[in-house]
């Protein structure tokens, strides 16, 4: 399953990482190198094996659905690249 330049362009876009045209070909080669190495997993018989999503078999714990934190906009906004009047300032998202 070789990755070509157009696939890299599409995946980089999905990952929201701007990738200059001249980086696409080298990146495709790197990814193909890694994927070729990963291909060896096809040798493994996984018939009837349940996917393992966690090492912790316990169920997710539940807690009371109550507010335990909050009401502190100053702390929440402290690291914001841009904020005003207790709000995050972001670019216009609706045209």
């Amino acid at each position: 399953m070789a990755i070509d330049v157009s696939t890299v362009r599409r995946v980089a876009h999905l990952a929201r990482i701007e990738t200059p045209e001249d980086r696409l070909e080298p990146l495709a080669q790197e990814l193909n190198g890694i994927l070729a190495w990963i291909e060896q997993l096809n040798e493994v018989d996984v018939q009837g094996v349940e996917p393992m999503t966690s090492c912790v078999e316990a169920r997710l714990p539940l807690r009371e659905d109550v507010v335990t934190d909050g009401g502190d906009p100053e702390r929440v906004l402290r690291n914001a690249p841009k904020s005003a009047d207790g709000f995050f300032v972001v670019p216009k998202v609706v045209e």
Partner: protein
Amino acid sequence: MSDLIKLTLSDALDGLKARQFSSEELTRAFVDAIEAANPKLNAYVLPTPEKALDMARASDARLAKGEGGALEGAPLGIKDLFCTEGVRTTAGSRIISEFVPPYESTVTANLWADGAVMLGKLNMDEFAMGSSNETSFFGPVVNPWKSKASNADLTPGGSSGGSASAVAADLCLGATASDTGGSIRQPAAFTGTVGIKPTYGRASRFGMVAFASSLDQAGPIAKSVKDSAILLKSMCSHDPKDSTSLDVETPDWPSFVGKPVKGLRIGVPKEYVVDGMPAEITALWEQGRQWLKDAGCELVEISLPHTKYALPTYYIIAPAEASSNLARYDGMRYGHRAGEAKSLTDLYEKTRAEGFGKEVQRRLTIGTYVLSAGYYDAYYVKALKVRRRILQDFENVWDRVDAILTPSTPSAAFALGDQRVDPVTMYLNDIFTVTANLAGLPGISVPAGLDANGLPLGLQLIGKALDEGTIFSLAGALEDAAGFTHKAEKWW
């Protein structure tokens, strides 16, 4: 007073309790040592001398009253992956290079509650993605060890390279670290230090910058097995703020160090012999088996047939989880935001292209690819199934063995720049460590000898889930037998 920095944590705690020296004196010695060494080793990305001295004085006040916790007055380094309230936390990345957390990670909160003193934040590979510390936005860490064959700067390993270098160079009594595929044990092996990754779920992940959530686990890097047990005990706790935190008691691990190991059954997996492994590592492994045999252990040859598939499995699962975890860095609520952009999507893409380094971009791209429509089953789900096969390999041997002995790494520390060319070569560093992450098992690396160039080599013990106690006892036995007292010769 500069000899104070050479103490082990355990001896320093005794000295503090006996009031032979104050925490302020001890802390000041470290502050001076860091100031002198850091321009050369680059182990700390942010020394916090004032905070350290304040905390030390508060510890001295408690010690004077005969009070204080298990780590009272002990100066430690903190990997820059742990959020520290009011102290910049970067995960080695440009994208959060100015992030000042408004909260404290549970692991560090536990250390401060026990009286530890923070010397500063330690350098690391960006988002813990690397095995040589060369992906850090703040530049690589240098290993205090030098090869007899060359004067080249060596890597301390990664991703916890700052932690390992700082412990090896006596720039802290011990350090926090984290391990997703080997990031505690490989740097420990490269620097002649002890590093343990506990069972998944022992240490809370709350406030730890996430890389791959089903694999990430915190642990210490320390100067001795006993020190690592003291630190790990303090770091671990059940935490309702981490849904994968185990609701189990934390044992008194220091009491396991020094316990007899007679009669324990040690598995020696035949699949851990790899092509091109230096003869010295094979010989050290053999030596380790002999040491444990002499201590009364029984050696059992075992097979873990899916071992060779562990790294490729990891390089699907870890990037996939990372691509999801790191989606949060979009430049909106915190972190770097790019300047001019044509649209919102363009702004995201520019922000992340500017904010993430090359290796992180590579892994996010791989992760996005294996999760994308059409490839999800072929790669991601397949890897999750092979992961269970790897877990089953271990489950199949636990009725016959109590722990498993392997080398920690397939080589000694290499020169900075040496393995930068090919990502897969770099990934192979974790070949012996990554299985414990995939299966969620505890693993410890103990310094066991030097290679012909005078560089440290480590042996790894892997234990059953929640059975850190047994591997602490065995690691203690290896430490005693190896009598490893070598230190890097000071050049920094």
